[in-house]
């Protein structure tokens, strides 16, 4: 998600310890914590071509070597090539009349709109049909690679058979197949297949490659000939097609366009999906999108007075509540415990453990366990950032009303809440409020790195309504969640008044 030109002034601490802008983090509604790209499982949903939007099934994709059969990339600048058509005059040979009339024929060639490379540059003959006839460049090692792949396939199947045999060895129920070295299950599988070629495996083994000491001689003028850079391929161009790595520009050939993936992301702790795109490649929508942007109050820096060592500067922060529920925001110091809390009917604060968070269904992962990615949970890392200013935290809290899309079109007058501390809340409209805080950069010069921007840290506690519980006919759970925020305020002003 693009977010205000991707400026990372306000960063949220993810539960894994990385710092990201709100546009790049997710909020898992099931374990009530912030997740980011580093601490979720990435799963490929589908493959598609970004140019023609074809999305073949996964098995076909593998056969196509993860490349689109119709679209090509420019070998020179890696943009998508477009198919151009032209007309040529062809003398028809079939006319019985003496004067053969020239016939116009449609021809096609590939051309790049960015760098004007064309298939004609490479000497590829023009085609008479627009798609399908473009031949792909053969890798010189194709034969060897397929031989090796086939050999390893055989090895793999032998290993599998051995494992299967071991599994059944202890049982020894059906002995009639044992003398042939296979179990009954294997025998059932083998029905209708080619006879086992176990003895042949030795002869199938491809020739091992041999290292050679002889190296091709460099040409005599290698150091004296002046080179024309415009005719030699760049490193990028060579690595784009590693099998060939051609040296001269005119040897470049169009490359089939690689498929890109639609992926869903899954929380590693509870296995619930935090992001799942629509299957259709033309759609940019999501089936599930638990972006933090929709659940966690958003914080933006409105203004900050010039920062001076040891002097307090005014900092205006704008908070925005994206949820349908009213929320109370309390700003706390960095060292407060981050566990979510709830207030019981008796008004007692209670810590919530992962176990008693009201979760939805327990097994959200419908994929068979064999396909499923093994989930590795890593320990959260320490947030590695130097805080070099103190923020004076307010003693009072403030309330953000729920989001109301219709209110956007209402009377634009500012609505002041009478309960607000006028020293804290300076502006308020709809679900947004601007508050005023004071920031004092630390005087301690040893800690200061020269020309490092000033960073302040604070913890935000916000009210959250767990609506998953309502699906199970329970009263929605009111929770107080906390998130650590790091604000980059800019550099110190050096000329002290």
């Amino acid at each position, binding site marked *: 998600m693009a977010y205000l030109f991707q400026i990372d002034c306000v960063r949220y601490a993810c539960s894994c310890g990385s710092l990201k802008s709100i546009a790049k983090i997710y909020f898992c509604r099931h374990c009530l914590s912030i997740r980011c790209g580093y601490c979720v499982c990435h799963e490929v949903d589908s493959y598609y071509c970004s140019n023609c939007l074809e999305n073949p099934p996964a098995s076909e994709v593998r056969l196509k070597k993860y490349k689109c059969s119709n679209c090509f990339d420019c070998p020179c*600048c890696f943009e998508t090539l477009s198919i151009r058509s032209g007309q040529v005059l062809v003398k028809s040979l079939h006319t019985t009349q003496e004067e053969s009339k020239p016939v116009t024929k449609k021809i096609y060639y590939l051309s790049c709109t960015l*760098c004007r*490379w*064309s298939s*004609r540059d490479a000497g590829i003959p023009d085609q008479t049909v627009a798609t399908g006839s473009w031949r792909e460049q053969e890798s010189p090692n194709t034969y060897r690679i397929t031989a090796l792949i086939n050999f390893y396939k055989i090895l793999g199947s032998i290993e599998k058979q051995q494992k299967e045999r071991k599994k059944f060895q202890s049982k020894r129920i059906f002995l009639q197949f044992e003398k042939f070295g296979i179990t009954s299950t294997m025998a059932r599988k083998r029905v209708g297949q080619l006879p086992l070629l176990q003895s042949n495996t030795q002869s199938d083994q491809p020739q091992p490659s041999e290292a050679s000491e002889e190296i091709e001689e460099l040409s005599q003028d290698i150091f004296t000939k002046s080179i024309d850079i415009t005719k030699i391929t760049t490193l990028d161009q060579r690595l784009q097609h590693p099998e060939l790595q051609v040296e001269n520009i005119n040897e470049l050939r169009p490359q089939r366009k690689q498929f890109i993936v639609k992926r869903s992301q899954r929380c590693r702790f509870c296995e619930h999906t935090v992001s799942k795109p629509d299957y259709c490649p033309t759609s940019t929508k999501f089936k599930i999108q638990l972006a933090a942007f929709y659940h966690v109050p958003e914080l933006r820096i409105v203004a900050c007075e010039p920062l001076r060592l040891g002097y307090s500067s005014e900092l205006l922060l704008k908070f925005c509540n994206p949820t349908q529920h009213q929320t109370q925001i309390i700003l706390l110091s960095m060292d407060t415990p981050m566990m979510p809390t709830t207030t019981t009917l008796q008004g007692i604060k209670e810590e919530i453990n992962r176990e008693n968070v009201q979760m939805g269904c327990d097994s959200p992962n419908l994929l068979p366990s064999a396909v499923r990615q093994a989930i590795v949970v890593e320990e959260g890392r320490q947030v590695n950032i130097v805080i070099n200013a103190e923020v004076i935290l307010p003693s009072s809290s403030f309330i953000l009303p729920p989001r109301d899309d219709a209110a956007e079109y209402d009377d634009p007058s500012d609505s002041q809440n009478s309960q607000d501390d006028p020293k804290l809340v300076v502006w308020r409209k709809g679900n947004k409020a601007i508050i005023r805080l004071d920031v004092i950069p630390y005087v301690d010069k040893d800690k200061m790195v020269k020309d490092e921007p000033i960073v302040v840290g604070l913890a935000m506690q916000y009210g959250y309504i767990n609506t998953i519980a309502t699906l199970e006919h329970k009263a929605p759970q009111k929770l107080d969640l906390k998130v650590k925020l790091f604000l980059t305020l800019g550099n110190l002003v050096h000329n002290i008044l």
Partner: protein
Amino acid sequence: MSDLMSPSSRRFNIKIGSGALVCEEAILKGDITIGSHTVVHPRASIIAEAGPIIIGEGNIIEEMSTIINRISPDDTGTPVQIIGNYNVFEVDSTCEASKVGDNNVLECKAYVSKQVELTNGCVIGASCSLRDEEVVPENTIIYGSQCHRREMNDKPYPQLGQLEYLMKMLLGYHHIYKPNMPPPKTESST
């Protein structure tokens, strides 16, 4: 339009060849010669600051593009900026080059400085700029954010279809300067 701004009063040093289409909304300053069948769009600027500008045949000079013969401190005498035939100056491109050959294309927002000489069939890609002194070899293309270079096999084709289309369209919607140069002798025979 006031008399001061009328084309006849400031056109004395602007020569326009027969068949050229120069819109009145174009910004023309100084001693300019525009060859036949050249199209100058509205809001294009041709500014002969240091010396005259001579533009050849069949060029397309698009909106917001600038061709300028800029004054520089190391000029000796009056430098003449010469632009050849069938060049295309796309939207918001700037050409200060002292000499431009034939069949060159300056794509959108391209910039070519005064020290540069464009030969024939060169393409300066969108947003690419050439600032150092050089003679760009024929059929060179400069493209991408890194200003990569390559030699093309073929020069860009003259935009004859586009020229023809523009002649029709612009004439229908804009006031144009009347050509004031006699057609060249080779053409008068046809």
